[in-house]
């Protein structure tokens, strides 16, 4: 008789319940700790500005991974890992979108002199 294996973690499957409870509790405690750490770092101004920014970003990314693993159980997906693949593609698009926008807009600000900006504004409001 063929055994029916659950493909994804799904509430309809009664598989190893204890593991999932433990994973939710671990995820919850880790998330609370990470959030509180980030808050205390910023609230106390523990580091210089650029290190604070890097620290908060690193803690947010860590929490993203923690919640993906412990709340959404991405690590328990059986092969082929379609959900993981789709997520990797999403992350690629998000990185291009966010850092591409910041890059372009920064360059635009950098390359425009105040005279150019004034000339542009006059052209726009002149109407001719």
């Amino acid at each position, binding site marked *: 008789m063929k055994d*029916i294996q659950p493909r994804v973690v799904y509430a309809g499957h*009664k598989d190893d319940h204890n593991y999932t409870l433990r994973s939710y509790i671990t995820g919850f405690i880790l998330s609370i700790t990470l959030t509180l750490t980030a808050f205390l770092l910023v609230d106390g101004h523990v580091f210089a500005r650029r290190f604070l920014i890097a620290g908060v970003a690193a803690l947010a990314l860590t929490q993203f991974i923690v*919640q993906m693993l412990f709340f959404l159980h991405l690590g328990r997906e059986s092969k082929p890992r379609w*959900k993981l693949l789709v997520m990797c593609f999403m992350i690629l698009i998000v990185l291009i979108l966010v850092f591409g926008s910041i890059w372009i807009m920064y360059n635009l600000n950098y390359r425009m002199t105040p005279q150019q900006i004034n000339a542009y504004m006059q052209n726009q409001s002149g109407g001719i």
Partner: protein
Amino acid sequence: MSEVLPIAEKISRREEKLESDDRAVFGFWIYIMTDCVLFASLFAVYAVLHNNTFGGPAGKQLFSLPYALGETFILLTSSFTCGLAVLAAQRRNKNQVLFWFGLTFLLGLSFLGMEIHEFRDLVLSGNSWRRSGFLSAFFTLVGTHGLHITIGLLWMGVVMMQIVKRGLSRGNIRRLTLLSLFWHFLDIVWIFIFSIVYLLGAV
């Protein structure tokens, strides 16, 4: 009639049903990923505009960090209780499912209340979305998240009513599984809002 069916056919039918549920989860997962791209574009807008305060106040003067931390903890706890509701559904314990979903609903509602209160204070003090590019981007980003929370709460109310009426049927278990994915996803988006808008705004 079902006794007459050969065992192999029964199993293949069951497998088909399981597969269709898996497909529903996967399809919903793809929707969530596209929603991430929507939020990413709003984050990009915020990143570009966050210095354009037009002589008005910046995030440092406007946001209260402990207040935002409270919101974060409430949403995080609701994500956890939502997971407990899914576990209760695995054990087919209807009352526990309703209890944990009820708790998740109340936590989500109080999060939404805190957010509306914050928006109200900002607008009443003259710092609405019309004040500056920074505030337009802020209200769009956080407001879109709040809208998602509102939709999630409505959905949760409907699912709870369905469970009360029809119990933990196959369809209801599929609904609550998809809902829990949505709710966890909203919590993850909020982590980035808390880190980028509130924490980095105060650095």
